[in-house]
């Protein structure tokens, strides 16, 4: 009975959660001047659309994985440079798929959790005469409803598509793996969310503490980097797997068999091909099966823990001990543009979703910089990898426009009462985006300085792309602020405003990619010509977009 009552409560609470997620009314935003029931239904449909978008992306990834599995013998033997036994390849693909599922769902959780907390839905329910178990169950259902479509997509589509690709038994055998992946992702989101409340959101101001906060963010954002990192490092993973498979049974393969998600991803291959299909040593199969059972039991434990913890997390205010001797208040005043830039950085340092986006190109630069460094002194290779890293950073930067706009929407109402022009606001955000791009490029060069055999080409490439990165950011922010000005439409986070964020990123992506296409088109010519063409395209797009976005308005 309690679950039924909890479900009924969660329906009402979820409507409120959607409303707060989209309009952030409790955070001080003003509602657009429309009928409240229309706003409420629009909020519900926007959240549903965003969940559908995430579910669609996960479904697309699963379909891609299933297609590769279906054609495993062709890909594993014909396409890869060094052929790999088909069953081992299948395990590798499923490992990649489960890893990406965990990372993507976890990342989504990081985006959603601040909304879950700031909406303040659970504290509203708490004083009502509702018994403890019902409140706990309501909190669980509410949390799960944030992920329902993506989770259902994974739980239904993965066994179905793996079953179609490898056989019905394989489809059944992947169920424990995908179930564990889902539970781990949701639990990790909650654990990191709780950590976020205690150590990051609740952290006091001050230079030393800011550095500590960013360190914390890096520490637990690194695993969430898995989604992107796995795509980047996939060739290295399959290379290592091929070497292990070629070496025959070994302790290395047994160790891999004991790891997550490799062990659970091995079950379909074991079911379909038998133990001899994998190069496991003596006792290796037992290790693999015991690890699988262990990870599944751990997932069951994690699910039970979540059942208790969600209510507590939803109710926890960020607590900060007051120092015995507070220092006298001081203030450092700067210009408006710099004030916006610093404010965004400070807000991101307490908001993991935004911190993740800022750190993504920087971590990617570090990863690719290291790869460049490890690539050895082969002529041309270092520069190519370094240019690849910069290209990635430039394209990733196009997702910052919507993210930094979303930062502004929180308490946007107060910002609108200040004498702050839209131009200064946009310039502050664009400066930060430009700075992140340059830091990422600088990191690649710093790490891989010995391997970049044409440093001038690298520096020219970075400089030529820079105006396009700025133009893309200007275009995206220009569109978003215009939309906010005319429709009063807030975009609270990238999850609840996913459609708008994706749509706005498309023109930005085109602008950022145009100089890269020009570089490729002139690749056969000397580097100075290719970079010159690139710079022309980038400067052209900047000259077209900047005056339009930065023109002075009446106010």
């Amino acid at each position, binding site marked *: 009975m309690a679950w039924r009552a909890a479900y009924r409560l969660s329906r009402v609470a979820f409507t409120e959660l959607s409303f707060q997620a989209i309009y952030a009314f409790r*955070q*001080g*935003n*003003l509602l657009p*001047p*429309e*009928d409240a029931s229309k706003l409420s239904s629009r909020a519900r449909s926007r959240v549903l659309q965003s969940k559908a978008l995430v579910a669609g992306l996960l479904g697309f990834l699963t379909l891609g994985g299933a297609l590769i599995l279906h054609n495993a013998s062709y890909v594993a033997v014909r396409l890869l440079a060094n052929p790999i036994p088909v069953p081992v390849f299948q395990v590798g693909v499923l490992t990649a798929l489960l890893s990406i599922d965990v990372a993507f769902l976890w990342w989504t959780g990081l985006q959603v959790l601040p909304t879950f907390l*700031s909406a303040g839905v659970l504290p509203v329910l708490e004083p009502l005469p509702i018994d403890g178990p019902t409140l706990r169950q309501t909190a669980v259902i509410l949390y799960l409803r944030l992920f329902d479509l993506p989770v259902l997509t994974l739980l239904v589509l993965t066994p179905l598509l793996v079953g179609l690709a490898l056989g019905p038994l394989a489809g059944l055998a992947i169920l424990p793996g995908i179930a564990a992946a889902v539970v781990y992702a949701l639990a990790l989101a909650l654990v990191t969310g709780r950590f976020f409340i205690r150590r990051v*959101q*609740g*952290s*006091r*101001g*001050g230079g030393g503490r800011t550095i500590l906060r960013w360190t914390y963010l890096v520490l637990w954002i690194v695993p969430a980097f898995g989604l992107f990192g796995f795509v980047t490092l996939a060739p290295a993973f399959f290379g290592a797997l091929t070497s292990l498979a070629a070496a025959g049974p070994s302790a290395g393969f047994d160790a891999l068999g004991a790891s997550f998600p490799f062990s659970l991803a091995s079950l379909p291959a074991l079911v379909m091909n038998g133990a001899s299909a994998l190069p496991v040593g003596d006792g290796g199969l037992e290790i693999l099966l015991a690890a699988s059972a262990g990870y599944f039991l751990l997932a069951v434990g994690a699910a039970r823990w979540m059942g208790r913890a969600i209510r507590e997390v939803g109710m926890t*205010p*960020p*607590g*900060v001990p*007051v120092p015995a001797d*507070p220092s*006298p*208040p*001081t*203030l*450092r*005043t*700067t*210009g*408006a543009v*710099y*004030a*916006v830039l*610093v*404010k965004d950085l*400070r*807000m991101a340092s*307490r*908001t993991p979703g935004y911190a993740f986006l800022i750190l993504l190109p920087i971590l990617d630069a570090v990863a690719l910089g290291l790869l460049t460094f490890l690539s050895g002194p082969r002529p041309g290779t270092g520069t190519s990898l370094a240019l690849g890293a910069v290209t990635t950073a430039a394209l990733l930067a196009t997702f910052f426009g919507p993210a930094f706009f979303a930062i502004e929407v*929180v*308490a946007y*109402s*107060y910002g*609108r*009462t*200040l*004498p*702050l*022009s839209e131009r*200064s606001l946009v310039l502050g955000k664009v400066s930060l985006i430009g700075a992140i791009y340059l830091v990422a490029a600088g990191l690649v060069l710093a790490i891989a300085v010995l391997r970049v055999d044409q440093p001038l080409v690298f520096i020219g490439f970075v400089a030529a792309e820079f105006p396009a990165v700025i133009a893309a950011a200007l275009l995206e922010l220009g569109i978003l602020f215009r939309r906010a000005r005319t429709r009063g439409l807030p975009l609270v986070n990238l999850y609840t405003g996913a459609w708008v964020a994706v749509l706005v990123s498309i023109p930005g992506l085109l602008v950022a990619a145009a100089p890269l296409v020009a570089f490729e088109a002139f690749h056969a010519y000397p580097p100075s010509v290719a970079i010159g063409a690139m710079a022309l395209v980038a400067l052209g797009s900047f000259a077209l977009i900047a005056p339009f976005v930065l023109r002075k308005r*009446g*106010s």
Partner: protein
Amino acid sequence: MDPASANGPVLPLRLDELSVVYGERKAVDRLSLEVRPGEIYGLLGSNGAGKSSTIKSVVGLVRPAGGTVRVFGFDSQKEALATKARIGYVPETSMLYEALTPHEFLEFVSGVRRLDPQRAADRTRDLVTAFRLTDEFDEPIASLSNGTRQKVLVVAALLHQPPLLVLDEPLNHLDPRSLRLMKDLLAQYVKNGTRGVLFSTHAMEVAEQLCHRVGILDHGVLRGEGSLASLRERGAEGDATLEEIFLHLTQEDEGVRAALASLERT
């Protein structure tokens, strides 16, 4: 050109035929009023009377459906930045960047207002000390109580010593000490004879103590306006309190008696 220099002293605030509409609902209906130099003007009204909508259109949060808002002669629609530079605003609800600390928030506000660094630092120190915010100065706003958040908003509004203060229920959540400080501060604030204060409140006794003039709003329409003395002349009795005048002008006195009688029966 600054309208003040062109036409001599101008009013801190002047509303002409201001209308605010939400969908089908008219929240403010052709409201005209002015806040004079050296004056504290209280906007009184029941819930939903249009007080907050009026204030939001003054500070630029709501676009008026009709009429004009002028702050020291500047049109709030055509010269929004000049208008906003002259206003210090305390909102009804906590509109704050919760991920910032008061310290970081005030640095942002002073940067946007392009304040002189030394003066801003001195002013902040004095205000933070006066409102006893020192302990919470470097704590995230998300962890602060409603009263402390309200104090942060008051400090932010006073930081640039604006010639017009616009306060929407500013005394909500404040503790008795801060309440007293705020009341004395407002009275002192307009003493130089050039500044003005517009504030909305439900608290009749506060309005009675503080305001030089009050305007009584009901369903977006101004039912009465003037000093307490002039309103008394229109009231039911010669020594009526502001509360009695308010209920009389909004024709709620009978309604209150009827509601009480109905509650007694049940």
